[in-house]
């Protein structure tokens, strides 16, 4: 009987076997296929960025030269940062998982503009090629922030890399635009704004930032390229430009971009925690509104990257106060997630293990952000490893861990295969231990005065640096293991049930993997996070 069901599932039509051949994928307008294409692409970028990270950590095993020269080292951390931010984290959750899941959650057949969606993907590919061009033509050593005046005078391939980021920006803008229109216009009949799953709220808030902040990055990078090519006199102080203006322009995008990165992560956690606690989400409206609040306040805090750049004292004080303000909606979310787990019927499967890891790591990342938002401490911690540790706790401990949680949560839906739960738990343990060894050490290094981006360091930091590097090897091993068992699951039977976790959102009502048009007939909105029936049937 089970065999018959498995056989039927394997041969029943789904989005993977609806049409065949490489061309049918290259020209597809199906949001699910585009999501899968994004997933493969961003994970490739993650692998590249991760290899650069490991090379950096190997170099830091000893205080002087270990495996590479100083100039190569500068290129390594620049490429690590630029690839991870622009090619991996920003598109990871929205463009890969969001593309696949969001229309399903809304009960829609596709996103609002399917062809624009495909174009976004190809813009990502173009941007990746330009970044590759930057590596081939000599590399970039400016750091991912491209600060002037160094970026306007260095002989590195800054133009290639910035044009890559420019094109990737448009990819991101079009994804955001597409998702806003989808959320507004393509919700299933009966689905009001407050019947939407919280994942959709998070992706929606992200999309607002993508649309409103990214164009400013676009024009900033264009001006930077013009400054390099024509010496137009806006950023280069040698000809009367203002380098701090570049920092303002850059962070006007790139601080909101931090929320482009973390909001989708939070959106995944809002799905995983109620599902594995078998309990209605606590404070639905507060979580939904806090996403929007983070998106809006996030536009007003960019100056906290520039406390030591020569901003006026009044400006720094205001930016510091606004920075504390943005902590409130983030904390609201964390308290609501914890309250959801309280007295819940918790099961510790891989997505939930990652979600709990997220709560711990994001709490540390968020709280250390308060040290850095406070003027008196930031002056000392600015440009030290403390900052590096802080944003890795938020970006990797937050977003990437949430991304992996989401990847495990929706893996059966996307591929139709169940992965090995045992290996998944081992992978999660290795990632969690490795991550904390790598980055908690860097808080200590930073508070003792280890500056970031330095090639050499004082001998006294060697034990901590080495410990951090060993941690990164464990982290890398954990991620490698994760890749292995996920890929291995694809060779197994198509055994994923329709709803393996007992989720209540609409994507769990269609088969795994879904049919080409998502649902048989038009689904109607349900109350999300109502687990009463689920608990009865699963117990």
């Amino acid at each position, binding site marked *: 009987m089970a065999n018959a069901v498995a056989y039927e599932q394997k041969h029943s039509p789904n989005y993977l076997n609806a049409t065949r051949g490489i061309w049918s994928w290259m020209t597809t307008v199906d949001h699910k296929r585009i999501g899968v294409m994004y997933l493969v692409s961003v994970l490739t970028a993650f692998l590249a960025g991760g290899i650069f990270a490991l090379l950096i950590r190997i170099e830091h095993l000893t205080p002087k030269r270990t495996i590479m020269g100083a100039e190569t080292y500068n290129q390594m951390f620049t490429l690590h940062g630029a690839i991870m931010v622009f090619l991996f984290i920003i598109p990871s959750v929205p463009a890969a998982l969001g593309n696949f899941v969001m229309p399903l959650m809304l009960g*829609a*057949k*596709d*996103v*609002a*503009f*399917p062809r*624009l969606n495909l174009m976004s993907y190809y813009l990502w590919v173009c941007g990746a090629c330009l970044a590759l061009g930057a590596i081939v033509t000599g590399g970039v050593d400016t750091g991912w922030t491209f600060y002037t005046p160094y970026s306007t005078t260095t002989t590195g391939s800054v133009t290639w890399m910035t044009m890559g980021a420019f094109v990737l920006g448009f990819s991101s*803008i079009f994804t955001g*635009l*597409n998702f*806003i*229109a989808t959320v*507004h*216009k*393509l919700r299933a009949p009966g689905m009001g704004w407050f019947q939407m799953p919280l994942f959709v709220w998070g992706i929606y808030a992200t999309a607002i930032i993508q*649309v*409103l*902040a*990214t*164009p*400013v990055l*676009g*024009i*900033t990078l264009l*001006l930077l390229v*013009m*400054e390099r090519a*024509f*010496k*137009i*006199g*806006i950023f280069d102080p040698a*000809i*009367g*430009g*203002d380098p701090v*203006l570049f920092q303002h*322009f850059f962070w006007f995008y790139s601080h909101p971009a931090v929320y482009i990165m973390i909001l989708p992560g939070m959106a995944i956690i809002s799905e995983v925690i109620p599902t594995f606690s078998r309990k209605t989400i606590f404070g639905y409206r507060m979580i939904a509104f806090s996403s929007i609040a983070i998106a809006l306040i996030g536009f007003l805090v960019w100056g906290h990257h520039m406390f030591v750049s020569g901003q006026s004292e009044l400006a720094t004080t205001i930016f510091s106060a606004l920075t504390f303000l943005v902590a409130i909606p983030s904390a609201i979310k964390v308290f609501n997630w914890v309250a959801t787990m309280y007295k819940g019927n918790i099961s510790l499967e891989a997505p939930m293990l990652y979600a709990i890891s997220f709560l711990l790591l994001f709490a540390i990342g968020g709280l250390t952000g308060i040290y850095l938002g406070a003027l008196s401490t930031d002056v000392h911690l600015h440009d030290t490893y403390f900052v590096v540790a802080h944003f890795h706790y938020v970006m990797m401990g937050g977003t990437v861990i949430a991304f992996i949680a989401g990847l495990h949560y929706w893996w059966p839906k996307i591929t139709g295969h169940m992965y090995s739960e045992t290996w998944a738990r081992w992978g999660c343990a290795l990632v969690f231990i490795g991550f904390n060894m790598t980055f908690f050490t860097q808080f200590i290094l930073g508070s003792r005065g280890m500056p970031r981006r330095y090639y050499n360091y004082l001998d006294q930091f060697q034990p901590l640096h080495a410990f951090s590097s060993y941690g990164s090897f464990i982290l890398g091993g954990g991620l490698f293991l994760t890749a292995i068992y996920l890929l291995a699951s694809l060779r197994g039977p198509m055994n994923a049930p329709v709803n393996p976790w007992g989720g209540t959102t609409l994507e769990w009502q269609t088969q795994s993997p879904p049919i080409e*048009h998502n649902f*048989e*007939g038009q689904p109607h909105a349900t109350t999300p996070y109502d687990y009463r029936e689920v608990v009865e049937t699963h117990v």
Partner: protein
Amino acid sequence: MSTAVVHDHESGHESHLQHHFADSEQQAETSKLGMWLFLATEILLFGGLFVGFGISQIKYPEAFLAAHEHLQKPLGFLNTVVLLISSWTMVMGVWSARNNKQKALQMFLLLTIACALIFLGVKYFEYSHKFEDGLLPGRFYTHSPMSDHQFVFFSFYFMMTGLHGFHILGGIGVLTWIYLRARRGEFSSAYYTPVDLVGLYWHLVDMIWIYLFPLLYLIK
């Protein structure tokens, strides 16, 4: 299988309706929302240039004042009038589509394209005049010593009018595409969303010029 049949039946009369929309109204509203969002990104794209211009002007007020005297106000004024007329012809084009006036739609689209070409022609004369006098951006500027910072004004002048010019070129492209579709009789009161969307885009391009003209040519 039955859903697919129903689906085909529903969309059988309206070939423009994409499969993921329930009806034409939903599709039109979605497209319009998408266009408005795109226009918002355009405003922010130019917004960066406006802010940069403002800050540089505060830094070098005398240089910007002296430099802007080199611009030919009558030609700038002429182009403003041309674009205002093109906005009117565009509105009339949309109105014609909505009222099933096929011939009028084609005529107004051609008039709009003509206005855009006139604008670029005038811009060509202005640019060549600047080129002759060495009033060029950045390191190509030769009209006066670099130390007086007038070159910064021309950097912004060429960046802003240049980016705007590319938008005019893009406008000519989409207007031509719409015109060719109009000639095939694709638009009627039942379906004219593309005309509407191109109209919105064209008005934004005009509006940006309405801000550029006084900022660059007139304000002292």
